[in-house]
């Protein structure tokens, strides 16, 4: 039976070696192994991307008058050759319009085509890696083509009635809707040649949508 050991690197013993070199496991002085989760490792590799639709003081318009499956508030087309794993979605409402059901939905599927919209700003988790996303991201789109097959609804959050408040006496509704893959632990692989769509549906909503995902060669996920 062999006893395994690493190397104590808690404070002064820490060194950062080159890519591809052999290395002992990093340990604290009591033998505890230093660990990082896989998604954090992908982040350092530069393979996690953030798409911003609306930033700072610039909102985008969400689809008005209820959820329309052909009008995407955010759409990612995943091409052949890569697959993505959704990690985080944040929807922020600056306004809702008048009273109507609020539906926040994320779906994946195939056959969808986005209508014209605004190009999302997409950034890598580690710009030093030089990696860029192969996906095409669009926000605030006009009517296109709905999913035609393989539809999977990954997340939904609703509010029965929502309205832009005008006085402090009015009851507040949620303005920030958030989903995180890490909270459930389930990872969904999307693609190659598939799409992901987000709706932020109310009467006449506007705000921001940000989305984070890991992107890998599809060969690594088959």
């Amino acid at each position, binding site marked *: 039976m*062999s*006893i*395994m*050991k*690493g*190397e104590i*690197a808690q404070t002064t013993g*820490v*060194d950062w*070696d*080159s*890519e*591809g*070199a*052999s*290395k*002992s*496991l*990093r*340990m604290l002085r009591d033998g505890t192994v*230093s*660990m*990082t*989760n896989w998604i954090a*490792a992908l982040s350092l*590799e*530069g393979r996690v991307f953030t798409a911003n639709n609306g930033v700072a003081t610039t909102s985008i318009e969400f689809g008005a008058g*209820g*959820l329309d499956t052909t009008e995407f508030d955010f759409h990612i087309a995943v091409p052949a050759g890569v*697959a993505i794993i959704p990690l985080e979605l944040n929807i922020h409402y600056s306004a809702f319009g008048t*009273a109507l*059901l609020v539906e926040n*939905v994320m*779906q994946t599927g195939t056959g969808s085509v986005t209508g014209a919209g605004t190009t999302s700003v997409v950034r890598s988790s*580690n710009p*030093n*890696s030089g990696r860029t996303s192969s996906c095409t991201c669009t926000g605030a789109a006009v009517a296109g083509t709905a999913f035609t097959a*393989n*539809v*999977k*609804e990954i997340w*939904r959050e*609703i*509010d*029965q*009635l929502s309205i832009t408040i005008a006085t402090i006496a*009015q*009851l507040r*509704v949620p303005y920030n809707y958030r989903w995180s893959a890490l*909270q*459930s*632990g*389930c*990872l*969904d*692989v999307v693609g190659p040649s*598939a799409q992901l769509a987000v709706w932020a549906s109310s009467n006449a909503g506007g705000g921001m949508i940000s989305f984070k995902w890991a992107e890998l*060669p599809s060969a690594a*996920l*088959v």
Partner: protein
Amino acid sequence: MAKVEGLIKQTTAVDRLKEGADQYLRLLRDGTLSMVDWIAALSLEGRVFTCNAGVATTAIAFGDEGLDTDEFDLFVSVPSSVVIIPLELNIHFETTGTALLVECVMQVGTGGAANATSTATVTRSSNPNTGLTSACTSVCAANTSGTAFTGDVKEIWRASDQISIDIDTIAQIRIPYNYRWKAMTSGVLDVVGPSYGLAVWASSKTGTGMISLKYIELPASVMQ
């Protein structure tokens, strides 16, 4: 005494080899070990399934007038060859009807069966590239009686609201519309099957909405 070493694969040296090949431990440049959670590994393997009862703009009708143990709003029948581990349940009420107790419940047990007129659900793998499909049969929106559980009943989760009603003005007080359960919150994993059922109720006066369930599915032999 063996000293454990890996290879530094933080940015440019990362490689992804073929199935079954030997591979070195992945380390960051300071020697930190990269780990993946078991459920995430099963997700990539395609063994986590999402079952949707109602999607997009199509809601299903939940059982009305209170919880009826033989009318299931979602029922998963686990056959003799597999077991499942529930991971996540989401219930969304678009309407609840007039004032009545709201009860959201998930149970497992044996001997239960959904009525044949129930609606089939859509079930998808976490990684469609693997080609794995679920061996379970899932139905929803049973509005006529089937058979209630007869043995081994375990109630895994419950959330309730004492009274609920569809709001029609902004001045009315809001109640929850989204009820969520996640196994990761407690860390407890419940193995269901083989030859079991999993049932979900989303009970109110006259509710409508959507239910989604995520679960791991494995051959029964690996859990015995």
